[in-house]
């Protein structure tokens, strides 16, 4: 049985519209909804949480229709983008707030707050006021507070986007930990990297509906939305393992072969991406500083927003963005034999 099912969800709010949104999330899954800003991701979460009335369609949680259920009894916890901590309460009181609705005694509340603070690593902050917390700390408090009621499904509205790189990494690892404890999570974001790093499955939301769902490599390699397709580079998206290589470079092994990567990341599993703009296509092997050079065969030419997207089979399919002039100069057509080269520094490794 699915943990969360959203079926034909539609709503019109002024100029903005959600148009028959459908998706399902399994128990314990980390589902990321990816879409541009203004695609309706936050509205969707608030509708699931019962905070925006008037939507048609069905929201089922653990087999139960909660579409008409009171906000307080829905069993979903929502973390807002800016954490929405109560500014007149300290961290302890913020986390204790939902527990007070349960009519627990003070000792039990104290025990539960400390347990949650311990898990989210904010025990030292319990007496602080939200105004004195950093963005990352605020999100941790908001997570602890949302988890206090043990929601069946946790809804996260861009919790990481506003943080700097180091804090993002820390918060990601906390989110993974929460998910590993069995918590079902629906996370919305406009950041594909965040989606790739966290999601067990991704849904792409565009023009008010979910246009594609699937695992990260599937969604990024075969995009069905303009939004994802616009990241041409991300079509060159492969999962594998980073290993120690010779000299300053590392090797990335995946089922399509081996690629040299210039990265400071430690060895381990992860993804690589290469932007289509960084791939060079030549007739013959090209002697240059590019550490990666592969022979292949053109399988398709597709007009892109600017230039032409050339799909080359080198064992896996690579997508290169080249100018129309280069296509005619090299006389590229399906079946042409070519070489594809790119620098080790053009390869981006994302651990996860």
């Amino acid at each position, binding site marked *: 049985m699915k943990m969360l099912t959203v079926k034909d969800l539609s709503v019109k709010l002024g100029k903005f519209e959600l148009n028959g949104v459908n998706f399902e999330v399994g128990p314990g899954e980390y589902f990321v909804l990816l879409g541009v800003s203004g695609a309706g991701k936050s509205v969707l979460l608030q509708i699931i949480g019962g*905070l925006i009335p008037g939507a048609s369609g069905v929201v089922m949680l653990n087999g139960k229709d909660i579409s008409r259920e009171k*906000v307080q009894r829905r069993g979903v*916890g*929502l973390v807002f983008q800016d954490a929405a901590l*109560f*500014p007149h309460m300290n961290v302890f009181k913020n986390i204790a707030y939902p527990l007070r*609705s349960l009519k627990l005694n003070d000792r039990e509340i104290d025990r539960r707050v400390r347990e949650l603070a311990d898990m989210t690593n904010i025990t030292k902050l319990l007496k602080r006021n939200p*105004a004195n917390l950093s963005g990352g700390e605020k999100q941790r408090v908001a997570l602890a*507070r949302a988890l206090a009621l043990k929601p069946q499904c946790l809804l996260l509205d861009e919790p990481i986007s506003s943080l700097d790189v180091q804090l993002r990494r820390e918060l990601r690892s906390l989110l993974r930990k929460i998910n590993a404890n069995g918590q079902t999570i629906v996370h919305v974001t406009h950041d594909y990297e965040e989606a790739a790093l966290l999601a067990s499955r991704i849904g792409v939301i565009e023009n008010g509906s979910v246009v594609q769902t699937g695992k990260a490599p599937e969604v990024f390699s075969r995009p069905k939305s303009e939004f994802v397709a616009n990241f041409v580079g991300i079509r060159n998206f492969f999962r594998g393992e980073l290993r120690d290589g010779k000299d300053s470079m590392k090797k990335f092994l995946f089922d399509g072969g081996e690629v040299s990567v210039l990265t400071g990341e430690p060895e381990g599993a992860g993804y690589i991406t290469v932007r289509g703009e960084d791939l060079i296509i030549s007739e013959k092997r090209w002697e240059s500083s590019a550490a990666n050079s592969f022979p292949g065969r053109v399988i398709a030419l597709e007009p892109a927003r600017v230039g032409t997207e050339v799909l080359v089979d080198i064992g896996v399919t690579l997508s290169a963005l080249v100018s129309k002039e280069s296509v005619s100069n090299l006389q590229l057509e399906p079946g042409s034999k070519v070489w594809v080269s790119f620098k080790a520094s053009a390869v981006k490794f994302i651990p996860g």
Partner: protein
Amino acid sequence: MTGFQPLKLFFVFLGGLLLLFVIAPLAGMFLETSPAEFFDTAMEKEVAGSIWLTLWTSMLATLIFALAAIPFSWILARKKFPLKRVISAIIDIPVVIPHSAAGIAILGFVARDTAVGRLGDHLGLSFVGTPAGIILAMAFVSIPFLVNAARDGFLAVPEKLEKAALNLGASPARVFFTVSLPLAWRSILSGLIMMWARGMSEFGAVVIVAYHPMITPVLIYERFGSFGLSYARPVAVVFICVCLVFFVFLRMLSTKYENADG
């Protein structure tokens, strides 16, 4: 930018004139009242009684009507409903009509031969010439100050915080009392002080509904009419002093809240 700025100097001069306009009459009044006169007046039973009456009626008017005004302000801040603008405008009417006219309107509403008057009589409550009538007249002219301040206060509370509280299992009543009200409290307190101060200084509406018992503004008017300026002045000075003490104390209290919050 430094240097000579004629425009700035001119503005400061205008401000100085304005301050002088407010301070000069008050200062003159204080200077013309001797300490002996001041203390004799303050000790007068009639004066002390009227000041006490003015204080407690205006305070009670504020507290009783706040019970309805504060939740209503929240509705005005948060909910969309037909004729909302019209209703907001109605709330402001007492500010723009002459207060003697407001007194006539209230008297017509609560006099003994009206439905409200008869109901009051039935409950042993008379509004004409009683503290109850004074409270109604004071509340009528001062309620816009509280409603407007409280509404602005609620508007300044991010709706997201109320939504977050609902999502965390709190009932709408709990959200109101633990999130909306505390976060709008600074504005509400300021509105309460303004309403109380405005009620306390009311003359026009009260004098028509209840000449007796005499609140201090009516007493000042009566002494002026019967005995002249020099008899009215010490009463006015004593009353202003009492008002200022309360006003400064309450302002300090609200500043303390401000500091605690920020």
